Structure formats: structure tokens, C-alpha cells
């Protein structure tokens, strides 16, 4: 049994909140750069170049890449041989978010009640997903999620008979409906299988995979490629103003499901697809 103080989690999360909102990951930077070189539309190219410039300013001047610094979504993989000490894990996580968003000059975008809508003032609480795994370490992944794209995300409860064509239609429907609202070029996270909530979590987790990494399952990797091409053929383009760069990647996760079901979740992310991980 290894002991980990929850205060260590607080510090990690605080620093990750600040870092991830100022610096986009290398895979996303490369994907944007590549897209701006390959875009045919003049306006599309201009927008992609502006986005690259935006990333430079964000890093060099400590201004968040996007003003929507998101709701903090946190995935934890907790080794079963870990003993957490020094207080509540959930409280420690939220303290990390509070410190990160306050000290990092990040926007506080969370309201305490979905209908009464009073801002909590410190961007807490986070959305936390925990998984117990083997080992004596904790892997923390932070993925702040902006709601321009979150609002365009969908869950489709398909029938098994709709099969892979049904899945393709679902993804394309969500992307076309999202259009300019989701700040394209997008990253499209897809969860297939599980049940109603599992597919949504799979889709969100898919957004934390690097955009230059394919699924390890061959047919899924092929589906990712095919959907990416189809999405880029919609012509939505950068900023929704036309072009062939509508998405930078389609990342799909799958899970076993029920004999009667084919759940599909499409979690759309904008070009500011932020995620960062560390191991404690």
C-alpha cells in the first residue's frame, strides 16, 4: 500500500489547469499547422493562420488560448494499492481547480445550479470520473471543456440493425448540426457501445487521445479515417466559413454493449482541444 497525500493532487491539478489553458499540446499544434498548409480556401487558410498566431500569443503572453477556459473535466485512474491520506480526494481536486482558475486568471464559467444559475466564482466543482485500476499510482487527466462545442454534442441510441452506417450517419449529423457553432476545425470524440452514460464518457475520453494516434482496433481506425474524410468533405471549413479543414481528427472508443442496443455518443470539441495528463 502506497500512501499519497491528497494535497499533492491539489498542487498537480492547479498547475495543470494553468498550463493546459495557455499551451496547446504538440499534437494539436502540428495538426493545425499541417491543416493551414493544406487548406485550399483563402479565407480558411487565413483563419487557420490566425489560430496559429493566437496560440503563439497565448503561450508567450500568458493569455488563455480561448476565453472559455472550460468546465474542468478530470479523469482519474487510481491504483488499487494507493491509500489517499490527508483529507477528501474530491475536495482536494476542487481545491486544485479553485487555485488554478483563480491564480491563473482563468475564466470562472460554472454556475451552482443549472436553473438558478449563480456563478460559483471559482470554476468549481469539476466533473470527475474515477476508475480503479491495478497498481500503486494515480494517473490524472485534465480536459477543460468549452461549451460552444459541448452544446453541439449528442447521444444517439441506435438499433443494432442500423450498424456501422447508422454510426456514420449519427456522427455526420452531429457535425453538420454543429457547423460554425463548435469553432471548427473540430476534434470529434465518438463513443460506441456500453450504455447511455458509458458511451458519453467514452466519447469524452476519446478527445484526450492524441490527434495523430489511431485506435488500436483496425476496423475502428479505418472508421476514424473514413469519417475524418467525410467530415472534411462537408465544406464547413475553418470557422464554418468554407474549406476542407472541418475536423483535425475523429477519435473513437468502443465498449461491449447489450444485445438490444447500439449507443453512439458524439462529443465535439473545438480546435482548442485541451488535455494534459500526469502520473502521481
Amino acid at each position, binding site marked *: 500500500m502506497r500512501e499519497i497525500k491528497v494535497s499533492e493532487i491539489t498542487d498537480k491539478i492547479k498547475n495543470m489547469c494553468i498550463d493546459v489553458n495557455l499551451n496547446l499540446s504538440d499534437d494539436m499544434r502540428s495538426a493545425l499547422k499541417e491543416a493551414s498548409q493544406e487548406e485550399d480556401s483563402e*479565407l480558411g487558410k487565413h*483563419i487557420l493562420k*490566425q*489560430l496559429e*498566431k*493566437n*496560440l503563439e*500569443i*497565448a503561450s508567450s*503572453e*500568458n*493569455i*488563455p*488560448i*480561448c*476565453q*472559455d*477556459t472550460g468546465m474542468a473535466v478530470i479523469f482519474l485512474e487510481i491504483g488499487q494499492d494507493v491509500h489517499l491520506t490527508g483529507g477528501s480526494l474530491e475536495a482536494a481536486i476542487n481545491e486544485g481547480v479553485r487555485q488554478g482558475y483563480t491564480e491563473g*486568471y*482563468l*475564466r*470562472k*464559467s460554472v454556475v451552482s445550479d443549472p436553473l438558478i*444559475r449563480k*456563478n460559483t*466564482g471559482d470554476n468549481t466543482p469539476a466533473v470527475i470520473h474515477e476508475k480503479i485500476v491495478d497498481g500503486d499510482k494515480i494517473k490524472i487527466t485534465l480536459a477543460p471543456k*468549452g461549451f*460552444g462545442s459541448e*452544446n453541439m454534442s449528442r447521444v444517439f441510441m441506435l438499433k443494432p440493425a442500423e450498424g456501422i452506417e447508422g454510426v456514420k450517419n449519427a456522427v455526420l449529423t452531429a457535425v453538420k448540426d454543429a*457547423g*460554425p*457553432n463548435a*469553432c471548427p476545425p473540430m476534434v470529434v470524440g465518438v463513443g460506441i457501445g456500453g450504455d447511455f452514460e458509458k458511451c458519453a464518457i467514452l466519447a469524452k475520453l476519446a478527445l484526450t487521445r492524441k490527434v495523430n494516434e489511431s485506435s488500436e482496433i483496425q476496423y475502428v481506425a479505418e472508421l476514424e479515417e473514413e469519417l475524418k474524410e467525410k467530415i472534411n468533405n462537408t465544406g464547413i471549413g475553418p*470557422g*464554418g*466559413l*468554407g474549406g476542407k479543414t472541418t475536423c483535425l481528427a475523429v477519435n473513437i472508443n468502443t465498449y461491449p454493449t447489450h444485445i438490444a442496443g447500439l449507443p453512439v455518443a458524439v462529443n465535439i470539441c*473545438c*480546435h*482548442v482541444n485541451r488535455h494534459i495528463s500526469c502520473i502521481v
Partner: protein
Amino acid sequence: MEIKLTSPIEKSRLSELRAGDMVSISGTIYTARDAAHKRMEEALSSGKDLPFDIKGNIIYYMGPSPAREGQVIGSAGPTTASRMDKYTPKLLDLGLAAMIGKGKRTPEVHEAIIRNGAVYFAAIGGAGALLSKCIKECEVIAYEDLGTEAIRKLRVEDFPCIVVIDSTGEDLYLK
């Protein structure tokens, strides 16, 4: 290429713009997003004045991140305009000249834009650091308790936008 505009702005100037035109805006603009629109709607319903004179003015759908010391404002890119659609026709009928945001608008907003000779601009979504450099002054003028959603009066210089819906109703997203 780029058309220079000054805000507040005359409707006659807006009527020259066409969907797809690149413009740069200098002058005074006001921020308002979801919660501020709700407050403005409530003010109008109870017969009160709006916190600023919207006639000839431009609303920027934006809620910034906080400014660090020495900065005018934090990250300051556009938010999705469609969430304001419910409130927009009334504001256009009261003289609002233009809006800056991103994303699609409802048919009701299209009609109100045509009826009033207004314009809907898009700024580049997710380019908040870049756009913040065009904001030279920022002052909260109403609903301070709303935090990032408070109404701010901004002085902008060469703020880059694209005409998405022009005063004839032509929509660049639908082209």
C-alpha cells in the same frame, strides 16, 4: 480588401456591406452574453431603460477571462450567438446596429436583421488571445455581479470581423 468601420455606426454604412466582406472595427462596442441579455430583457419588460443606449451600437457576444496586471482584458473571443437569438429581435427593433459573435442565427433573427438594416459579424472563435490585443480599454458598466457576464464598454482598434449576415439577409454560412 479590409473595410474599415467605426462604431457607433450609421445604418447607411452597414447597408454597403455584403456577406463575406472582411471588416475591421474601431471605436466603442459593448459586451453582453446570456445572463446580461436576460437582465436587459427583464429591464425592458418592466419599463426600465437599458444600461446603455443601443441605438447605432454594436454588441459583442463575449465574456472575457480576467486581466492580469498590466493587461486591459484577458482572453476575449466571441461566444456562440444562437443563445442570444431569443432576445435579439427586440434589441434590433430598438436600434441595435450590429452584433459580433460566432455561429448560426434563427430565421427570426434573420428577419429582424433585414427589417432593421442591421448586420451580424463573426469574429474568429477560439482566437481569444489574438483578439484581446485589439481591445484598448475595458470598463464594466452594468451588472457587475455577473462577473464575466457583466456588460463591458470596450474601446477597440482594428477589431477583425467577417460579415456573416448582411442587411439584405444574405448569410455566409448558407452560401
